[in-house]
């Protein structure tokens, strides 16, 4: 035994070196799994900060080129202007709308991108779905994903032409949801046991719930409000707490999911920026 320790001490540097090499190679070859959790989180903020500063400075050097490009584009667009073209006049009268303010103007909040599922899992503790759209097609991180029948999950990783979606069947997935009938808001989670059952928590016992009630996304969730999630199948009681634990059957069939929509919330940045200014 003593010899073993002696050997270890003798070769300590070599062992230490080999361990570090192994760690480095492990990180290198498991990049995608690591990338989100360990690697890019806090360090990404620091390097991102420096990178941003650098590109701010770098921007000055290309100002002239950028200006020329913009000038060229302006010329091109100016040439397309309507007043450059003569249109044969076929109209008889021109009516001018006297209302100055368009009070029923609508602005768009959500944009939908269709996508096809190219990889799917339901059997693991943490399930991911891969879809065939990436940042080249307008997908960014944290966009929500829905299927025609119910919600699916949210985008966690984006590459050029595909992205991975954290499915609702994931131990960290959590969606703010509410009962369609009475509007009480709680949280939908998955306990990792059965892909046919998800849990709906934090509904007070004062609410009357029946099996068959529909649960929809709440106004506060990242999904479009009012989108269906599941149907209550079982009403469980949390001992010692004032809340129900409802079991839902998800309306999305995660087994044969093929087409999904990725939802982009156009106001998300504005909302996040506004909420950041809240006094703490």
């Amino acid at each position, binding site marked *: 035994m003593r010899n073993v320790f002696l050997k270890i001490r003798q070769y300590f540097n070599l062992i*230490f*070196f080999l361990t570090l090499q192994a*760690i*480095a*190679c492990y*990180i290198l070859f498991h990049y995608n799994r690591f990338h989100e959790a360990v*690697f890019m989180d806090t360090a990404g903020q620091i390097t991102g900060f420096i990178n941003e500063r650098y590109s701010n400075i770098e921007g000055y050097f290309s100002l002239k080129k950028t200006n020329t490009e913009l000038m060229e584009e302006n010329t091109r667009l100016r040439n397309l202007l309507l007043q450059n073209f003569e249109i044969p006049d076929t109209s008889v009268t021109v009516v001018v709308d006297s209302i100055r303010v368009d009070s029923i103007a609508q602005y768009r909040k959500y944009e939908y991108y269709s996508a096809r599922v190219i990889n799917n899992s339901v059997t693991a503790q943490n399930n991911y779905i891969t879809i065939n759209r990436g940042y080249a097609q307008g997908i960014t991180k944290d966009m929500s994903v829905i299927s025609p029948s119910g919600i699916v999950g949210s985008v966690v990783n984006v590459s050029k032409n595909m992205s991975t979606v954290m499915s609702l069947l994931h131990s960290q997935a959590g969606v703010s949801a509410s009962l369609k009938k009475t509007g009480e808001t709680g949280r939908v989670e998955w306990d990792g046991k059965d892909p046919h059952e998800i849990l709906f928590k934090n509904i007070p016992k004062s609410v009357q719930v029946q099996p068959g009630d529909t649960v929809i996304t709440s106004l506060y969730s990242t999904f479009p409000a009012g989108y269906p999630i599941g149907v209550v199948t079982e009403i469980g009681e949390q001992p010692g707490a004032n809340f129900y634990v409802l079991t839902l059957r998800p309306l999305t069939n995660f087994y044969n999911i093929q087409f999904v929509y990725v939802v982009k919330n156009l106001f998300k940045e504005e909302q996040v920026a506004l909420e950041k200014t809240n006094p703490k």
Partner: protein
Amino acid sequence: MNDLPKNIIRSILFILVQVFILHKIPPLHQFITPYLYFLMILWLPFRTSRTALTLFGFLYGLSLDYFLKTPGLHAAACCLVAYLRPFVINILISKEDSGFNYVSPAPSSMGWSQYMVYAFVLSLAHNTWLVFLEWLQLRNFLYLAGKIIASTGVSFLLIIITEGLFFRKQKFKTNI
């Protein structure tokens, strides 16, 4: 200046130079990636213990990896350089030689020829390991050989230029 803050500032500068200058240069050829940052490890004092040296190499490489989004790649290569360094030094200068009486490796303390061998061997080790790890994903022999030779040549050249530009005067340690 004290040793520790000097080395910290130096390593930050080396990383920034590597990321924002050497990696922003438009590539001359697909084989050439100019690497200079590992010169930092070559400059560490003689007295640094081997464990500390290896650990520093790993962390230093990893910090470059954070910028270049290649986790583990440069960490592995730097770790190798740091581990090999004491062996190369031991071969090049014997214990009784005057070299060990200086603080850290430099042309003025080791002599130009020895220092050049030292720099060449370690930059070869660095680039070989780096390209080899990349090659595991690409599997193209010409790429492997060409890139090792070209990168080592460029690295070596950059090291010589740096040594010429920033002459580091080495203090002779008298018996303490």
